[in-house]
């Protein structure tokens, strides 16, 4: 078995809301294997988004010893600097947001190209990969359109293409189907699985959508910052 993409060990995170300390995560242990698609479920406030933020290196666990470790491809990353985290996000992590978060002044091709552009890849290679990716998500004809000229499903396909274009080891998806109708949501999920497997990416998906979670390899249920249930397709079978 290959090395896990992501390992969380005893991760804790608390927020200070005025005089109150709110525990968002209370010692989370989680491992994500290459190519695996893991669904995080749970009610609002259960800690799904906090867990995604920590896994995506846009936030850090509580300071001090005993608040957990995060390993990305075997490397400890929970205390890396802002620049190190930014470069890791740029090179190894893809993001799919609930409301797509495409840049409105960029064309579809520019949005998809952006991660390669900031990584400094040569123009010829970028152009080739963007063309391939847009063809893969069925948007080759919309390359020069602005996002506001696309439907919700098309926008999310652009977002998925943007997340996968750099061949990340980990894709963080926060409610990726929440803004989509069921048919489009099915298409997105199929697309993510297909492209993820092709690129070897692992997916960490926060969702309330039962149809989405039921098609993931594993489902981790969170409640009050704790993992209360883990189920997998194999176990279910």
């Amino acid at each position, binding site marked *: 078995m290959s090395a896990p993409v992501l390992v969380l060990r005893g991760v804790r995170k608390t927020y200070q809301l005025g005089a109150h300390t709110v525990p968002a995560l209370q010692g989370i242990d989680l491992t994500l294997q290459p190519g695996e698609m893991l669904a995080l479920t749970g009610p609002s406030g259960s800690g799904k988004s906090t867990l995604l933020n920590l896994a995506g290196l846009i936030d850090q666990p509580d300071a001090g010893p005993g608040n957990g470790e995060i390993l990305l491809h075997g490397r400890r990353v929970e205390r890396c600097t802002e620049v190190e985290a930014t470069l890791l996000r740029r090179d190894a992590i893809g993001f799919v947001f609930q409301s797509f978060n495409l840049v409105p002044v960029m064309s579809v091709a520019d949005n998809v190209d*952006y991660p390669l552009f*900031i990584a400094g890849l040569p123009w010829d290679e970028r152009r080739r990969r963007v063309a391939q990716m847009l063809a893969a998500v069925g948007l080759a004809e919309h390359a020069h359109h602005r996002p506001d000229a696309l439907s919700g499903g098309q926008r999310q396909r652009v977002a998925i293409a943007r997340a996968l274009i750099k061949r990340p080891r980990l894709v963080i998806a926060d409610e990726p189907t929440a803004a989509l109708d069921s048919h489009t949501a099915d298409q997105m999920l199929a697309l993510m699985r297909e492209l993820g497997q092709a690129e070897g990416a692992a997916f960490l998906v926060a969702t309330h959508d039962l149809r989405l979670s039921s098609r993931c390899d594993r489902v981790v249920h969170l409640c009050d910052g704790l993992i209360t249930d883990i189920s997998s397709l194999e176990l279910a079978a």
Partner: protein
Amino acid sequence: MTLHSMLTWLRFAVANTRRNRRRSLVTLAITALGTAGLLLAGGFALFTYQSLEEMAARTTGHLIVAKPEAFSTEEDTPLQHGLDDADALTQRLLADPSVRQVLPRVEFSGLISNGDKSTVMMAVGIAPDAEFAVKGPFVKVLAGRVLDNSDRLAVMLGERLARSLKATPGSSLTLLASTTDGALNAIDVTVQGLIATGVPELDARLVYTDVATAQQLLGSKRISSLGVFLDRMAATGPAQARLQAAWPQLAVQTWLDQAAFYKSVRDLYNRIFGALGLVIGVIVVFVVTNAMAMAIVERTREIGTLRALGTLPRQLLQSFAMEGMVLGGSGALLGSLVALAVSVGLLIFPVEMPPPPGRTNGYPLQIAIDPSLYGVTMLGVLLLSMLAATLVARHTVRQPVVDALAHV
């Protein structure tokens, strides 16, 4: 950063400035007006400086050669510190390659009388033909004509002095002055012309005559100083050094050493236009800052997204600096075109300015078109805009990604 990558950032910057066109247009218009204001004010100041420089150099000569005491000590008797054998010195000065003309001057004061009334005069003895050939029409002839070399015992009077003495061309007057021996001397002269210099106080005292008449009145063959006219303004410094080295016993001053009016006007204008430039610069910074601040607040979530995707803060700052550059640069370019159009328009359709305080003559309003002024101003506006955009973006691009993504 490669050229292609820079062009890509620039393309994004241009696209971002088009998000809110009305706001960008207002920013651009104010920046353009600020730039035009700076260029027009600066151009007007430059034109004034150039005119005053020319006037000052034309009045005294680019260089003034005299005995050192003539510049530092008051004379006890007329021409006490005057130059002897001016003709020989003039010939030697004319041998210098950059010297175009050398004009003798005899400056003295005394009384001028019409027989019934006497008044104080400030008189200058000149070599008329050379003086008017070199200086051009530096005085306005109101009646009669200017002096020429054939005139002897003739004068030109300032307008107000002539009015005071009820003198007209052809009138006979008497000049009274102390000779170099301290005796009082008088000679009769004929009025050839009435002139106006544009300075009423000067016109109430001014008398021009020829050098020989002045020397006859003062009982001396000396002259006060020699005005040296060069082939160009820029030759002043080197020529001064050369002539001073050749005649160490004499003092060689530049027109600037004697141009107290020019210096005071320049000091005043530098302060006025400096303050104006500062105010306009602050306005440009505020306008760009305001526009960028609104744009950045609106795009906080997008900034969070770009940061999450792996964009470094410095890359985002660079992007916002480019937006500032696009706004400021477009405004600076447009403002420069407006200033250029106004400057050229004033050449085609002249506008007469009212006389300045203490003067009787107006002057044409002109704006100098100076490439270095345009370059410095445009670059300044561009850099200020980039700085304003960078400063205002600094906080947002460095805020935690989680907070930026949660921004509503």
